[in-house]
Each structure stands twice: as structure tokens, then as C-alpha cells.
């Protein structure tokens, strides 16, 4: 039993951070080390370490999947999926969620200090890929003494990591849940990201990414990037239902450029509240990683080949109003898995909420994920 994690083992619990010596060999050919990883764990590993679930977060997400966010005070970003009585339950599962490298919530990224100079990396931080994020997660699992994952689960960019896991580490993943995601970033996806990046880099405060010293961060550019991206997370029907053409706190149009419409006010609020919790350079790096993401390209153009070595079970879920990663993208993955004879499940669920649906109340989603996870134990 010596290998069992004790409750007083400092590797486990909330708000953990570890410096791994690395270095991690990156897709670009560069290497990154030492690597800081900020993470949380919930629940306890069982004796045969067969109940470990890794949760992967989305672009602007973080490790606080099921505990209150230290900056915003809001509940964990996926409390509907992870928590007591939920499909991923600390009473049954040992749950890990780590901040992706390149981000800004405690894992190594452009805002963290370069040990060589004592200064923030800024744009000298190496360009990353989704695969690099997964390699860092694997290094964290090594540190935690976890050999195999019962499941890796993620939505959106988290789904990209989840789908990448069995392609990089075919023997370390038993099942894989990919929600509202894709096997590659489309031209449209890249285009929206480029708008956001250009907004940041056009902000005079950005200064080539070296804005950390005086605290004058490119918040205007980052807010615009967030506003543009936020539209892609919603649906036309959802926006119409929530805001329509209603005016914000006034009875008539002002014939000016103030936020006349509720939807404008909402987007401005989304942009402004985002800059308090996110680093602009991290936004550049992570969107770049997503744009470089194309699993088939990494396997000679064949998506089916990417999964040839794994015996993992897969569960894919899309939402009918998600136009960022539409159902067709999930179907491409399903067809590749079928072609390879993998155990795959797929369902398109109905929701008015667009891409964001995976984070919102959706009993069907919970039912599917719960059944899929339990199915592995039949």
C-alpha cells in the first residue's frame, strides 16, 4: 500500500503547483524546461489506480474545474459535470485538472518568469501546440504516479487535448470523451482567432508583448478579442432570445455610439471582465496552438491512422446549434474511428446555446457521459 497516495501527500489536493525539471520536447523542435504546472485533484486514487480521470480545459479555462475560482469567486467552470453526484464524481473518481502550458493561471506561459533571466518570457516563450499541452499533462501524471487514465474528458479545446491523448499515448488512455470539439481547426476557426490576435497586437500597450513591467497591459485589445470570440460561442437563436434588439437602460436610440443595445452592453461586459483574469500574450499563444491543431496532418493525412495504435473507447458529443465546432467535425472523427474499428459512440444533442452548451445545464449530456463512463466498468 506504500504506493497509495496518502491524504497528507502534498502532491494531491486543491491549488497545487509543481516545477517539473523537464525538458519537454515541443512540436516546434524547441524544448521547454523546467515546466511549472498548476493543477487540482479531487477524490482519492483507488488501490489499483484504475479510477483516474483527467479533465482538460478550454481556451480561457483553468484548473478550477470544480472549486471556486480564486480571482472571480465563481464556482468551478464545470461543476455541472464534475462534483458530488455528477458524472465525474470525487466519491468514485480521482480527478485531475491542470492549467495548460502557455496559459496564465500558474502553469508556465509567456507571463511566467524565465529562470534564465528572471524576467517574464513574453514573446520569447516557445510557440506551443495542443500536443505540447498533452505532453505536459503526461509529465504531470508521471509526477503524480499515474500510469493510465480511466478517462480523459474535455470540451472545445479540452476536447482537442482529450482526442490528442490516445494518439500520443495510446497505452495510457482507456476512454476518451470529446465534447463540442474537432480533429482540426478549420479556416473559419483560424480566421476568428486571427481577428482576436490582431486586436491584441494592434493595441499600443501590447508593445511586442513586453508590457509586464509597468502593468499597462493591452486590455482594450484583449477585450475586443474576447468579444469577437464570445460571439462564436453563442448561437443566433440564443442571442435573439436573450437580447433581441432590446435597448440597454434607455427608451430610444441615442443616435450615437454608446452601447444602445443590450447585446453590445453584454459583449462589452464580457470583454472587460475577461481582461481581469487573463493574460493577452497567453491568448496569443493558446489560439496559435489551436490553429496549428490538425491530428490527421500529424499522421500522414489520415485521421484513422492516428488512432490505429489505441484500444481506447471514445465518446463524442456535438450540439446542433454549435457553429464553431459543428456536428460535421465530430462526424469526421466518428467516421475515422469506425474505419479503424474503434469502440466509438457519438450523439448530436439539441441545445439553443451554441458552442457554450457543453458548459451549461444539459441533462442529456450528463446522462451520456455518465453512462459512457460506467459502461467501461460493465
Amino acid at each position: 500500500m506504500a504506493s497509495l497516495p496518502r491524504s497528507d501527500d502534498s502532491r494531491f489536493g486543491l491549488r497545487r503547483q509543481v516545477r517539473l525539471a523537464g525538458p519537454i520536447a515541443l512540436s516546434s523542435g524547441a524544448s521547454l524546461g523546467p515546466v511549472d504546472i498548476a493543477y487540482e485533484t479531487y477524490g482519492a486514487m483507488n488501490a489499483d489506480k484504475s479510477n483516474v480521470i483527467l479533465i482538460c480545459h478550454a481556451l480561457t479555462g483553468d484548473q478550477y474545474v470544480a472549486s471556486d475560482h480564486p480571482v472571480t469567486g465563481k464556482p468551478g467552470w464545470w461543476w455541472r459535470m464534475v462534483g458530488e453526484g455528477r458524472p465525474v464524481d470525487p466519491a468514485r473518481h480521482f480527478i485531475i485538472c491542470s492549467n495548460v502550458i502557455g496559459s496564465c493561471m500558474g502553469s508556465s506561459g509567456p507571463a511566467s518568469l524565465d529562470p534564465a533571466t528572471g524576467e517574464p518570457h513574453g514573446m520569447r516563450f516557445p510557440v506551443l501546440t495542443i500536443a505540447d499541452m498533452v505532453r505536459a499533462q503526461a509529465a504531470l501524471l508521471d509526477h503524480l504516479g499515474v500510469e493510465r487514465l480511466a478517462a480523459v474528458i474535455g470540451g472545445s479545446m479540452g476536447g482537442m487535448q482529450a482526442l490528442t491523448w490516445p494518439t500520443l499515448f495510446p497505452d495510457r488512455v482507456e476512454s476518451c470523451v470529446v465534447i463540442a470539439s474537432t480533429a482540426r481547426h478549420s479556416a473559419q476557426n483560424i480566421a476568428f482567432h486571427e481577428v482576436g490576435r490582431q486586436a491584441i497586437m494592434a493595441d499600443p500597450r501590447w508593445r511586442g508583448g513586453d508590457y509586464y513591467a509597468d502593468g499597462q497591459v493591452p486590455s482594450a485589445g484583449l477585450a475586443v478579442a474576447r468579444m469577437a470570440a464570445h460571439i462564436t460561442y453563442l448561437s443566433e437563436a440564443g442571442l435573439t432570445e436573450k437580447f433581441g434588439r432590446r435597448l440597454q437602460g434607455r427608451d430610444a436610440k441615442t443616435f450615437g455610439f454608446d452601447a444602445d443595445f443590450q447585446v453590445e452592453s453584454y459583449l462589452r461586459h464580457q470583454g472587460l471582465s475577461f481582461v481581469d483574469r487573463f493574460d493577452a500574450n497567453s491568448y496569443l499563444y493558446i489560439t496559435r496552438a489551436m490553429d496549428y491543431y490538425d491530428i490527421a496532418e500529424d499522421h500522414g493525412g489520415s485521421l484513422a491512422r492516428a488512432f490505429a495504435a489505441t484500444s481506447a473507447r471514445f465518446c463524442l458529443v456535438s450540439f446542433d446549434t454549435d457553429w464553431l465546432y459543428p456536428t460535421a467535425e465530430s462526424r469526421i472523427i466518428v467516421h475515422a474511428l469506425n474505419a479503424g474499428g474503434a469502440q466509438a459512440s457519438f450523439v448530436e444533442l439539441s441545445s439553443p446555446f451554441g458552442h457554450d452548451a457543453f458548459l451549461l445545464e444539459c441533462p442529456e449530456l450528463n446522462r451520456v457521459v455518465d453512462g459512457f463512463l460506467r459502461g467501461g466498468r460493465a
Partner: protein
Amino acid sequence: MSALRPDLALIARTVRPGARLLDVGCGDGALMAVLRDRAQADARGLEIDPSNVAAAVGRGLSVVQGDADTDLRYYPDASFDYAILSQTLQTTRRPDLVVEELLRIATQAFVSFPNFAHWRGRISLLWGGRMPVTRLLPDRWYDTLNIHHVTVDDFRALVKERGWHIDGQWFLKGDRETTHANANLFAEHAVFLLRR
């Protein structure tokens, strides 16, 4: 197996233990669950209705939401021992092509369908002059999902024309098996086991 529909119970009795099978139009996975639990089958499903898929995945089955008419082509040749098409043939746009696909994907294919030449239907059409609405075919002509009405003899003719082989055939009346004689008149339901 009392909860299983009679044609599914019949298929469940016939499938070899440990077989790899694809249930096309698997519904909520009732047959797949039985085959997994009692015959240790490696069962996969294809189902068009999302709430059915959610229910099947919710019971731990590997089911993909898709359309028999368009999505079978993504499965490689000879990747299953059995393909199962139960009560779905008559709802496909091209039943003949769907069966061709089943026999490409799997060594053998179960195909079950309601027999539209059952005498009750004939009488209803002959005397009433209306498309039959019966216990087995409860929907009206305008809201039924059945777009290709097929009889036992129609199906036999198709099998012959395409050169498929019949490895087994069963006929049902209510939930009991019935005689092969005059099946086209007396069977409410037919189950064929085909091979290319």
C-alpha cells in the same frame, strides 16, 4: 429475454457468443444490451434518433448517431460477424443498397421487417380500400416512417435477384414463430439471415 421484441429475441438466440456485430437502427440498444450481457458480444450500434442514442450510450453501449442510408460506407469491409437490421429496412431510402452494405461490412446479416402482405392488411386494402392500420403497423399512410412497403415474397425475389444466400429464415405471428408455409399470407413478421 421476455422484454425483447420477438424478432430481437429470435436474433439474440441465434447469434454466436463472442461475435462482433453491428446493430443498424439499434433504437435504445435493447438488443445490443442483451447480446453484450448474455452472449458477450462486441456490439456496436448505428441509430438515427438522438434521444435513442443518448439512451443507448447511457447504458454503456457503443452507439453512433447516423443514417443507415449514408453512414454505412464508413465501416470497413468484413469488420463484423453479423450486421443486424431489425424493423429498419422499410424505412430506408434504398433498402437494396443498405442490405448490400450490410453484406459488405459483415459476414452475415439479419434483416427483419413487417410483412405487408399479411392477410389482415390485404383484407383491409381489398374491402376497405384504405391503407392498413394494424397492431403491427399502427401508423397512417402519411405519418408512417415506412416508406418502402415490402412483403416476404418481395424480399425473397430481391435476394434471388442479387444472388444473396439465405442461411436462415423465421416467421412470426404475434410473439410466436409460425410456419414457413404460406408465410407471405400468414406471417406478420419475417426475419432473414443472409450471406453474400
